[in-house]
């Protein structure tokens, strides 16, 4: 749950990047950090294990300035995607306001996308949150690999696999180059803030 301080008119919300191991969650944050320097004066905090795999989380706070008379602050997190770190994912997911699901376009990771989305749904349900109701955006990452002749899933197949029930806004991306990263985040922020506005009755 976001922290809203009506007196100072500051709102602080939390967006979590979820998805299977190696799908590019950390790469998203790295790009946002590089490109969004003017929105933050903090460093990107990454707690990694061998080979740059996220062990605990990545963390990046952003300040968006005033929106409808409120100072809006956002905390971006990633979870560790490796299946064995589920208890850490649950911990990071605590008090989440919005989710970006980073799916891996590699054909060979098709099943992992599926399992990770299911894992997200279960972990949210444990916290009495409904994946159909939480602000959610799906990103189909690594689209660039198709041009290199590596087998990737067509977007429409990924939509059918992952998004036929959720009907969440979705974007193709190449997080390494930053393509689609901003759009994904922006959409998730809009959905999250709209959601919070209703919930917290926050307006001008």
């Amino acid at each position, binding site marked *: 749950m976001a922290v809203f301080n009506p007196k100072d008119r500051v709102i602080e919300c939390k967006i979590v990047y979820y998805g299977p191991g190696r799908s590019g969650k950390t790469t998203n944050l790295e790009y946002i950090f590089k490109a969004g320097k003017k929105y933050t004066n903090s460093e990107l905090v990454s707690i990694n*294990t*061998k080979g740059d795999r996220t062990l605990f989380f990545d963390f990046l706070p952003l300040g968006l300035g005033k929106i409808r008379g409120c100072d809006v602050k956002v905390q971006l997190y990633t979870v560790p995607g490796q299946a064995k770190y589920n208890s850490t994912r649950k*911990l990071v997911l605590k008090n989440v306001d919005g989710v970006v699901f980073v799916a891996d376009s590699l054909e*060979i990771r098709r099943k992992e996308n599926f399992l990770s989305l299911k894992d997200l749904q279960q972990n949210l349900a444990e916290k009495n949150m409904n994946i159909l109701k939480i602000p959610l955006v799906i990103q189909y990452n690594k689209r660039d690999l198709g041009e290199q*002749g590596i087998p990737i899933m067509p977007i429409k197949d990924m939509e059918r696999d992952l998004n036929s029930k959720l009907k969440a806004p979705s974007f193709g991306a190449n997080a390494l180059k930053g393509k689609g990263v901003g759009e994904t985040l922006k959409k998730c922020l809009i959905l999250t803030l709209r959601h919070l506005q209703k919930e917290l009755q926050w307006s001008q």
Partner: protein
Amino acid sequence: MSDKERIKSLIKEAALYQKQGLFEESKEKYEEILTFIQDHERYSKDKKLIDAVKGKIRIAEDNLDEIDKTTETPALSQEIQDLISRLFSSSKDKDMAAIEGAVALAKFGQYEKALAEFQRLIEEGKMPLVAAKNSLMCHIAISSPDAAIAQFEQWVSWNTFSGPDLKYIRTFLENTLEKQGIKADLPLVDEAPDVEGESEEREVDMIDISSISVELANGPRKGEKIELQVTFQLGNKISTIIPAQQKYLADAFKIGLRLSGMQCFSPLAIFNARGIVSGLKIVTSGPRRGSHALDITIDGV
């Protein structure tokens, strides 16, 4: 696609998976390549190619092994630990938030820091019972139920808590241990424990020592450095446990033995100390039965 092109494209794929850290997928792809090569007469005698592919499979396997082996609880900087306790505490109540922060530290494997934090909360009387329960859970997680029992024994003898509080904590610890199938010999608690005779020792201002390292002066392993966990500390007197399986260690100590180059580890610092073996006896009951309790009195730092 010609066979050559096919091999080339498979290798490209396998190499990309390797680069992206998808070692399982990379290994499978290289194995597919190996089968393909071995099935095609034109390549099946190309030893160089086969060896190269086998080498790649080994690299992927090594990477997988390494992932399995890496320790899951890295030592984090003070700064990151502070960040974790700040980020993962959401309560408006300050004391509750402090507890949540310390619990988060423990969940992220930062047990020493979490313990120090719980200890601080106990000392400052901020939700001391919640802090005490979490502290015991931490002890169990880091080392063993014995450490939790030792902590409880310390609270009893230091009179850290009131009688009724101690009783409550005792019940909690008893139940927790029971769930793990351990029947512990916890000291009984009076509603109003007698603390006379302890005040003098409590005045000795001694830093909390978590473990010590000493060089064996006798026995078959003379000269070897060993580390012992401190299970209990009262001022400058520390107790350690030598597990039953390591009886040869117990043989290296006897009462009155001077220990000159002892290293003491505490959550705050590592320091050198001198001391004397003030007690050595075999534990005859409880979960530590068969172990040796080694007491050391520190008389100089």
